[in-house]
């Protein structure tokens, strides 16, 4: 949620300023490459300063950072890939930059922005499981306990639950994505269900991500 609130505006701002875009995407990419366990570890000393070294807050902060890249990148790509003719028409008709974003560019970019959000959520569910190690609880606890006790059944149960959660979230957001897609842009075959699969800046299916995280 936090990541949506910061990521989308950042992406929009990036689309109006190519130099800033390069910098922001670079930083977000670096964040993405930090292994999750290491990032959680880094959070401990930093947030210990305010007495929140372990538990919920560092977990959420780390997850928000991870979610930035897909959201910023998709927002940025979606808006900068809008047909220049539309931008020219909008400008020529006397729209200000804000009017253009609000009435034309963001509505058209929305499906791809939402694809970024969807991807971020699925990534985060995978990473969140790891946050059990810094005492954030959740489904990850079942897995980590299973590892500690060498109990395969517990590990599998936890992994399946995480997967199921990821799949449900993926479908759910897919539905929202479809609803938010302006009618004039919906593909006819996706009248219902989640056949909308817009190309995104980060390619890969949800299951790829889970494999990468585990």
């Amino acid at each position, binding site marked *: 949620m936090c990541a949506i609130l910061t990521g989308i505006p950042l992406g929009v701002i990036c689309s109006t300023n190519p130099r800033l875009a390069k910098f922001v995407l670079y930083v977000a990419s670096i964040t993405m490459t930090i292994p999750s366990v290491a990032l959680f570890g880094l959070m401990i000393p930093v947030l210990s300063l305010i007495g929140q070294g372990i538990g919920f807050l560092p977990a959420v902060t780390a997850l928000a950072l991870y979610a930035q890249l897909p959201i910023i990148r998709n927002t940025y790509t979606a808006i900068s890939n809008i047909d220049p003719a539309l931008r020219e*028409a909008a400008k*020529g*008709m*006397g729209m200000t930059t804000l009017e253009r974003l609000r009435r034309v560019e963001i509505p*058209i970019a929305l499906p791809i922005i939402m694809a970024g959000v969807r991807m971020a959520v699925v990534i985060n569910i995978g990473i969140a499981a790891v946050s059990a190690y810094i005492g954030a609880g959740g489904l990850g606890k079942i897995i980590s306990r299973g590892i500690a006790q060498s109990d395969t059944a517990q590990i599998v149960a936890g992994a399946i639950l995480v997967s199921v959660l990821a799949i449900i979230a993926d479908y759910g957001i897919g539905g929202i994505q479809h609803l938010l897609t302006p009618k*004039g*842009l919906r593909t006819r075959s996706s009248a219902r269900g989640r056949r909308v699969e817009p190309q995104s800046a980060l390619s890969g299916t949800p299951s790829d991500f889970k494999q990468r995280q585990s």
Partner: protein
Amino acid sequence: MITLRALTKHFPGSLAPVVAGIDLDIGKGEICVLLGPSGCGKTTTLKMINRLIQPTSGKIFIDGRDTDEFDVVELRRRIGYVIQQIGLFPNMTVEENISVVPSLLGWDKAKARARAAELLEIVALEPSMYLSRYPRDLSGGQQQRVGVARALATDPPVMLMDEPFGAIDPINRSLIQDEFLRIQTRVRKTIVFVSHDIDEAVKMADKIAIFRNGHLEQVDSPDNILARPNNAFVAGFVGSDKALKRLRLRSAGQVATHGDCVIRAGQRSEVADELMTRHGLGAIVIVDDQGKPMGFFSKEQADSEAFTLSADQALPLPGAVKLEDDLRSVVSSMFASGSSWLPAIDQQGRFRGYLVQSAIEQLVRDSA
């Protein structure tokens, strides 16, 4: 209405200016076509009028007011803008697309809706069918009609059109051009129209401005451009078939003559002979009571013997053309029929005059 003074655009980094000191006056209600090969500065000139491109130097006045005095957003809302790529917003219905500028100006919904419906009528699209459609459901020609309707939404006095019909297939292009000219007779906008197609320019323009390398080579009426090109470049651009192009600028009604030189059934052949001699014609049309042509008698027929004329003896007409047909199609029918003259008829089918090949040839040869 629109005045350009010493207008210049020099993009940083390029050697020569794209537009170099252009002076141009466009009158109210006129269609001025900016014509030239690509890269000649015509589109840049157009975009400087609504300040999508900022001039390096020079002034643009609309109705005597310097465009630099306007707020740029306000200026653009007062100028209709149509582009080749059409640029309808895919996330909006036809109605919403047409209502973009009205809604930016804060019109209420009902008024904007009524206006959108009215405009669709004007561009010959059935409002009840098209208002709620999305652009992707329309053909290219229909989309550009909506594009034109959108530009007309707030009834701006000035319209800028950047090769508006360039992406439409030839058959539909000619239709939409006719349609647009019909709309123009109704709305009388001052229009700056960019084109690289001489045929389109001749058809649409009241005035053609021919560009080359950022300079104006000639600014004149289509007929003058075709009849009297200023220099070799303009002559080359208008092409070697300029005589045929000029034919398109005139209608049959302007050339049809001797509308009163007719005979009716029951008259004597001597009368017909005398009429033909007086008017210098080689044939005479016989008309019925309503004035509709039924056939003709040749000079030889009338000369050879004296008789009372009747429709049965008349030779069949070689065809007929309407007064509003352009001379190009008249000449085409003339070649097809093999006749050196054709009768011209009005909307009701009444005979209105003779179109004689030699008169048309004379017209083309004259530098009118």
